[in-house]
């Protein structure tokens, strides 16, 4: 889908802050509110805007234990469907947060979230490794998130500028 300059501008703004009020968004892109609303709707319907979510720093949310792992998966692609079929088998599991096809030393990069290391270990040994096309897996547990999707967690965002300057 070929996007217009205004549409590109809208998704750039919403990608940074999905909660930008529609009237503010309309002014930023210099369009009437109704027209801006229509464009957003169109982008949503075309699944260019897939979902609006919040970026959570789970470390600060006490009372919820969780671990994230990135798993490098080597697989045998299948004739006719390539990597797509095995990728789909993997991403259908709800605990799998993302799946990417990679260039380089392995094929699929799988990000998985679980309540504990044991839970993830169980998933890898029982679900992932046992798939026919999976040759090997290497699991890396994430110890700390510093930056996610372009956003720095714990950003010192104080304004260091002097209050009034020429």
């Amino acid at each position: 889908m070929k996007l217009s300059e205004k549409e590109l501008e809208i998704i750039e703004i919403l990608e940074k802050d999905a909660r930008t009020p529609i009237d503010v968004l309309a002014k930023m892109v210099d369009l009437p509110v109704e027209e801006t609303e229509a464009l957003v709707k169109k982008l949503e319907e075309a699944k260019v805007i897939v979902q609006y979510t919040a970026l959570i720093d789970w470390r600060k949310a006490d009372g919820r234990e969780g671990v994230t792992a990135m798993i490098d998966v080597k697989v045998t692609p299948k004739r006719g469907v390539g990597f797509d079929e095995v990728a789909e088998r993997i991403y259908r599991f709800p605990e799998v947060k993302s799946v990417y096809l990679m260039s380089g030393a392995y094929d699929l990069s799988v990000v998985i979230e679980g309540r504990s290391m044991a839970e993830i270990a169980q998933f890898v040994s029982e679900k992932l490794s046992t798939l026919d096309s999976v040759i090997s897996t290497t699991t890396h547990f994430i110890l700390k998130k510093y930056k996610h999707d372009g956003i720095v967690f714990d950003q010192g965002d104080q304004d260091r500028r002097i209050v009034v300057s020429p």
Partner: protein
Amino acid sequence: MKPQTRKTYVSKTVAGLKPSGIRRFFDLASSMDGVISLGVGEPDFVTSWSIREASILSLEQGYTSYTANAGLLELRQEIAAYLRRKFHVDYCPETEILVTVGASQAIDLALRAIINPGDEVIIVEPSFVAYEPLVVLAGGKPVAVHTSGEDKFQLNPVHLERAITERTKAVIICSPNNPTGTVQSRTELEAIARLAEAYDLLVIADEIYAELTYEGEYTSMAAAPGMRERTILISGFSKGFAMTGWRLGFAAAPDEILQAMLKIHQYAMMCAPTMAQYGALEALRNGERDVVDMRNSYRRRRNYFVASLNEIGLPCHLPGGAFYAFPSIKPTGLTSEQFAERLLIEEKVAVVPGNVFGQSGEGYIRCSYASSLEQLQEAIKRMKRFLARL
């Protein structure tokens, strides 16, 4: 014989300079908590990490000595390439480019290099607060030409011509303009060029905000027909590259003038800070992407902020560049000073009263939109409340 006691040690010239009108607001705003400041004349971005990192690397490698007086040759070569690429003007990096401590120093050098006692320098008002005192300090006589909100602060060539006398040596043009955000149109530039040629004047073109132009391609004064030989082009890294604290600018001018500026610079300053020059080198080599991102971000905030000002009843033209909106507060019946002071005290929003930029700024306020969108929204909310109470 006992010498007579002096009344003051301060020179008459300096004693005669009027204090900056911004100072009072600075003191007032600094003493308050919870102030949203739209009075800041600098980007809200921190310098790109790649630039900071390059400068740190230069320190690690021990580049801590002086550079050539005119600045690192490598940097001057990059500046020459940048000016050619961006503004289609050609300068020789060896003899026609000087790296300075901010664009401010470049303006000071330009004025000191060309002014004979009593020479007149035309300043287009409203204007950046430093031009007038710098002209006075250089021994010249500042002459104001006014622009008005009705013309969206474009300079009227007829008014300019009327201000020219036989003592006129130069005109200072700042475009995109601080405080009005106005970008001089191509037609105005060409008219200025014709006058400069007819009356044999120099133009000091302060183009520090050139990177922050939102509509169309920017035309440099030096690129106007016949103007390369009579323009002192001044720019720097502060605004476009968000490097205000680095204090790094540059001047480009024909050999004879540039060498005169260099003469003063080598005695008064030696050279611009070395670590900042290495940062600037990285800025010109790899900084373009960040500049584009920042420009887009300012443009969106400008659109939001100016539309909102008009909506709440402060008429404002859409500024073509810089990061200032210069709305009229005439509908309120208050003076600029009264408006700014009451807005600060009653709603804790700091703006700069337009009159500090010259008499033609009266009836206006300068609001910088180089603040986060959340801050701008909050500021608009507070200003709306303030206006409703008047």
